[in-house]
């Protein structure tokens, strides 16, 4: 049987001002109808370049050699009308960043109608009906109402469903999803991936999923192809690639997946667990005021917990659950509506801004977006020394302090003069952590410190955090949407849903005997690469 998509010997070189970049080197890839193939690798590896070659959306100055055949047609030689047909009914690409890929000035329904009419897939009379049909197919609730809404009125998950509907509008033979789950939380990730995998129909349509997140897509893929720096290093059935990886890069990717089964190593319990807590939050409410007398949004209601010195506490919840609001309130970045936040004996809920500044010597924060958290005009030295302005310190003592903080996070002094555009995501996050540690605070809040990073970098940063939490003199709060990343790190876990604490307890008892359905759902959604998890794969095909 001839494959649906056959890529052989594909090389892409792009001429830029800085010379030629060899984006792809002799890549071979095959997708059959009815098959779901996962293409994984780190960012910059050339994954999107393959997708763009298939739909012929390469940058202007690229030189392509090799062959791409879809359904027996030579894709690289297509022109004009044939190319248009190919992009509609041949291969359809579902772009990453769904909200940014939708036109913000047209309703989502109109955008699908546009696509249907442009490819003669519908008449003006039945276009709306067809669109609503597509919306139902991709699992949009209340499709008739969504038709008239604009992209900004939909959630990230709904936008992704609209993008899938757009790609499916012309009944393509090959459906390509480029990083379909970036920005979605764990439970949504599972749903969207199942939906995408369900589009593979034997004899009719094949699916290619591109992702940096091996663990997430492994569950729905029949085969996995691993791309490293433009070269295909391994392809094979999912179970084989994950079970017996032959290439070191594949092994590195697999090792980087946080293992939900990994238990926190035995450690001396925090010394002062019975002393006064570092942080004590009681009956905290945060209501976002709305304009013109409308009801405010209740982001946090009635949250209470304690944090002791040396303890590492996880706050886990889906996006929109209120966990970021909670961490910002703890840091005094937003003022709670009611309740107390007592940090080292001072209630900062009702403190003036000026007085909160004093507390910042003792509490610091690490942010989710490591690059954006650094001032683009400042050098690493300036950034890390910023908190030192809070304490009187002679100039000659600063430099050693900064270098000590950098070495604590594994950065050499040569980074001192660099700016943020000269740093990788992982290095930027290390700088962010160094800034938080430079004053030796009593408490550090880590707000999703790894969710914006590539998997292998994620593993390194988690390792760093693990080392830091091992020193039992500082309390950490780790905010995360992913239970797998916190099990091996945290003493206690708070699960938060709809602004309320759904469950809190010791990490192990919470993982082994969850008492709240929210915890159970989060546990079920956590990606895992164990054989039993992969055997669930087949039922994923049922939509």
């Amino acid at each position, binding site marked *: 049987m001839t494959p649906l998509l056959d890529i052989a010997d594909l090389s892409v070189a792009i001429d830029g*001002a*800085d010379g030629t970049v060899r984006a792809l080197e002799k890549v071979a890839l095959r997708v059959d109808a009815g098959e779901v193939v996962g293409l994984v690798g780190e960012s910059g590896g050339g994954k999107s370049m393959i997708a763009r070659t298939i739909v012929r959306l390469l940058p202007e100055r690229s030189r392509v050699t090799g062959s791409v055949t879809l359904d027996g047609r030579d894709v690289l030689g297509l022109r004009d009308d044939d190319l248009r047909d190919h992009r509609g009914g041949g291969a359809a690409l579902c772009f990453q960043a769904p909200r940014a890929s939708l036109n913000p000035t047209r309703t989502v329904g109109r955008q699908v109608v546009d696509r249907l009419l442009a490819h003669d897939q519908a008449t003006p009379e039945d276009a709306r009906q067809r669109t609503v049909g597509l919306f139902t197919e991709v699992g949009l609730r209340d499709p008739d109402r969504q038709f008239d809404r604009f992209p900004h009125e939909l959630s990230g998950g709904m936008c992704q469903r609209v993008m899938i509907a757009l790609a499916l509008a012309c009944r393509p033979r090959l459906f390509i999803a480029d990083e379909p789950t970036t920005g979605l939380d764990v439970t949504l990730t599972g749903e969207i991936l199942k939906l995408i995998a369900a589009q593979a129909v034997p004899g009719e349509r094949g699916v290619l999923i591109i992702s940096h997140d091996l663990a997430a897509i492994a569950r729905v893929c029949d085969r996995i192809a691993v791309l490293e720096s433009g070269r295909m290093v391994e392809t094979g059935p999912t179970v084989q690639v994950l079970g017996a990886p032959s290439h070191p890069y594949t092994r590195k990717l697999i090792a980087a997946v946080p293992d939900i089964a990994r238990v926190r190593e035995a450690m001396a319990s925090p010394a002062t667990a019975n002393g006064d807590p570092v942080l004590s939050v009681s009956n905290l409410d945060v209501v976002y005021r709305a304009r013109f007398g409308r009801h405010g949004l209740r982001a946090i209601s009635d949250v209470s917990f304690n944090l002791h010195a040396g303890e590492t506490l996880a706050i886990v919840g889906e996006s929109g659950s209120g966990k970021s609001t909670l961490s910002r309130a703890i*840091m005094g*970045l937003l003022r709670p509506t009611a309740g107390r936040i007592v940090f080292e004996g001072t209630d900062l809920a009702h403190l003036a*801004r*000026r007085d909160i*500044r004093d507390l*910042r*010597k003792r509490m*610091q*924060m690490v*942010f*989710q*977006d490591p690059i*954006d*958290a*650094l*001032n*683009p*005009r400042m050098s690493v030295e300036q950034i890390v020394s*910023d*908190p030192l*302005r*809070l304490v009187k310190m002679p100039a000659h003592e600063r430099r050693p302090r900064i270098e000590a903080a950098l070495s604590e996070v594994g950065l050499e002094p040569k980074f001192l003069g660099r*700016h943020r*555009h000269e740093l990788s995501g992982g290095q930027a996050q290390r700088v*962010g952590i160094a*800034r*938080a540690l430079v004053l030796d605070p009593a408490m550090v809040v880590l707000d999703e410190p790894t969710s914006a990073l590539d998997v292998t970098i994620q593993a390194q940063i988690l390792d760093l955090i693990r080392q830091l939490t091992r020193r039992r003199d500082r309390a950490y709060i780790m905010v995360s949407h992913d239970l797998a990343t916190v099990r091996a790190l945290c003493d206690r876990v708070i699960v938060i849903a709809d602004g309320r604490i759904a469950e809190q307890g010791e990490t192990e008892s919470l993982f082994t005997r969850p008492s709240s359905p929210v915890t159970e759902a989060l546990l079920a959604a956590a990606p895992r690469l164990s054989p039993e998890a992969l055997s669930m794969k087949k039922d994923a095909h049922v939509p």
Partner: protein
Amino acid sequence: MTALEASRHSRPVRINALLVAGAVILALVALAAVFAPLLSAWPPTRIDHLSFLEPPGPGHLFGTDSNGMDVYSRVLHAARIDLGVAVAAVALAVTVGTLVGLIVGYIGGWADELTMRGLDVVQAFPVFILALTVVAFLGNSIPTLVLAIGLINAPPYARMMRAEVRSLREHIFVEAAECAGNSRTSIMFRHLLPNALTPILVIAPLNCGWAILMLAGLSFVGLGVTVPQAEWGAMISAGAADIVGGRWWTTIFPGTALFITVLGFNLVGEGLQQITGRRR
């Protein structure tokens, strides 16, 4: 990504032809202004009683005007006032506008609303009419001219700065700066200002060109610099009557100087815009 950050990403700065041409012109004009007394034999206000409205010739390079003053010397000396007033006025406009925009953009709320509506009112008047009114009230000395032209040009800078700051303050590094213990003042001046300044500095040279034209315009209608002080607009105004009699030199030379200087500022502004814009 801000333009400035983008500029650091790029290869070594490519020299921009417009920028260089503009800078050379402005440097020549500035040199002429500084060394005016050395470059001309006649003081700008000395009257040659033997020659009134004499055409250009060896004695008076650009001829003399109806008062018997040397046009060449006056054109050179006028550069001092024109350049000085324009640069000082724009510096004032940039300072005031940037400060106002920075503060209200960061604080937001009613202070922001109020300031912006106030600027709306000021900007609703035609710029030149506003300048006329201010000078008519305050009198037309050089400091009041700087003040008038400066304040009238400040609102666009305030708007630009406010817009930049409002988008910048959504960035995480501002929140990070607050966590690092920066005060509001320090967040504004150490973290926001350096990141917001690029577009302002690109517009400022263009604005210098407009400022010179405004000064010349005020002088032309008699509310700016007055004879015997040498200023291009005033010279054109005084010489306007001579054109009818075919005596072109009293207006053409100051007019050309004005044109060349404004061209210089515009080229510099255009060049800066291209450099930062190309890399955006």
